[in-house]
């Protein structure tokens, strides 16, 4: 889609979008209840809008009154209903950040202090220069448009494509090469194993009935299957939650100490 066109065609009957943008006209636009209208024929981006604000306000580009310009930028994109367009929002956020940086107290003698507006000024100048080039290109293009070249374009006569020379033995050799490289696929059988948390809880309780403290290996022998490890872990967490035992690890990667909670010693 050409971004120069209006997104909401229903509005074209009411508003002349080629007319110069005047504040009064834009207020009319904001009164019309529409979900999302983009009018881009006047500004080709946030930098363009910013430059026009700077021109309108007649301020020095090297010494932009950032608070005033930021406020007007926000007001303008709101009136133009551009406050949902990402490019404009990004610039608004950038202006507010510069405004905040300008408010920070600074040491006058600090040589390292860089004007937070410097990057913005650089971009504005670069953009302005590009607009100048656009004017040059526009003039050149217009001059060329005013002269016709010969319109006759000879048809390219494409030579017929040569028939394919293929033999069955070549095809079989290709298949052979592919099959030689291809490995046997590794197929895993996935067996669903339900966790046995209740069983593990019983095991933990049995261990703690004999001893006041235990360690991980006591409730989960080294030969355990993954599902048993998981069951034991969940059982420990569950019992800790219920307050039947306490878990402690004295150092990172040290083994976990499982101790009976004193209140449940009745078990």
């Amino acid at each position, binding site marked *: 889609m050409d971004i120069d066109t209006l997104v909401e065609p229903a509005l074209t009957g009411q508003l002349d979008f080629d007319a110069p943008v005047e504040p009064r006209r834009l207020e009319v636009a904001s009164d019309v209840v529409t979900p999302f209208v983009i009018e881009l024929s006047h500004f*080709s981006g946030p*930098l363009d809008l910013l430059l026009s604000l700077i021109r309108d306000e007649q301020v020095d580009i090297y*010494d932009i009154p950032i608070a005033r310009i930021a406020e007007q930028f926000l007001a303008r994109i709101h009136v133009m209903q551009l406050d949902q367009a990402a490019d404009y929002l990004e610039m608004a956020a950038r202006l507010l950040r510069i405004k905040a940086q300008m408010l920070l107290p600074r040491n006058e003698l600090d040589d390292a202090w860089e004007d937070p507006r*410097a990057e913005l000024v650089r971009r504005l100048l670069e953009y302005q*220069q590009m607009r100048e080039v656009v004017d040059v290109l526009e003039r*050149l293009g217009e001059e060329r*448009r005013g002269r016709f*070249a010969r319109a006759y374009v000879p048809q390219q006569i494409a030579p017929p494509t040569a028939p394919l020379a293929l033999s069955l033995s070549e095809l079989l050799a290709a298949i052979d090469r592919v099959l030689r490289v291809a490995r046997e696929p590794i197929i895993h059988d996935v067996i669903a194993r339900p966790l046995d948390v209740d069983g593990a809880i019983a095991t933990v309780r049995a261990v703690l009935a004999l001893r006041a403290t235990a360690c991980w290996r006591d409730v989960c022998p080294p030969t355990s299957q993954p599902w048993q490890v998981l069951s034991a872990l969940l059982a420990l967490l569950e019992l800790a939650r219920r307050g039947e035992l306490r878990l402690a690890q004295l150092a990172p990667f040290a083994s976990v100490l499982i101790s009976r909670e004193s209140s449940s010693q009745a078990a």
Partner: protein
Amino acid sequence: MNPLARLLEAALFASARPIPLDELASLDPDASPAALQSALDELRETYDTAGHGVELVEVGGGWQILTRAEYTEAIERAQLAARPHRLSGASLETLAIIAYRQPIGRAEIEEIRGVAVGSVLKSLLERGLIDVVGRAEGIGRPLLYGTTPIFLEHFALRHLEELPRGDELAIALRSTTPTEPAPEAAPTS
């Protein structure tokens, strides 16, 4: 006109696109480069002085016969030929950046323009005004774009150097722009 100039005229008349110098040379293998150049000069002179409706122009590294600007309106009114479409502002801005900074990647163009340029790049590519000229080093190895001979043709440029140099513009190029705003610059108001 000498026979070589007449031969060149016939070839240029037959072609819809500008003919590069080396292709013109292949029309007559016996002609020296100097003879070719003087024949082109003679042809251009003839068109300019003998009162012709067409002129010979050098564009995009080649030569082309074009109608004179004063007859455009009449030709268009009679619907004998249609003027090419004008480029949109977004396309021109993107093209300007590419012309001056090529080879250049999309991210850098977007940084200068302050808006996304994906669809604009696509339409410029489709029109043949720009082309992918390589890939940048770095993350993702982004595509780099540059202008094509059709770009020169579109703006009737002989070569890119015909565009005003950066330091000839009112605003200086990035390299010569002070990165720090001048602290002594007095506010105008």
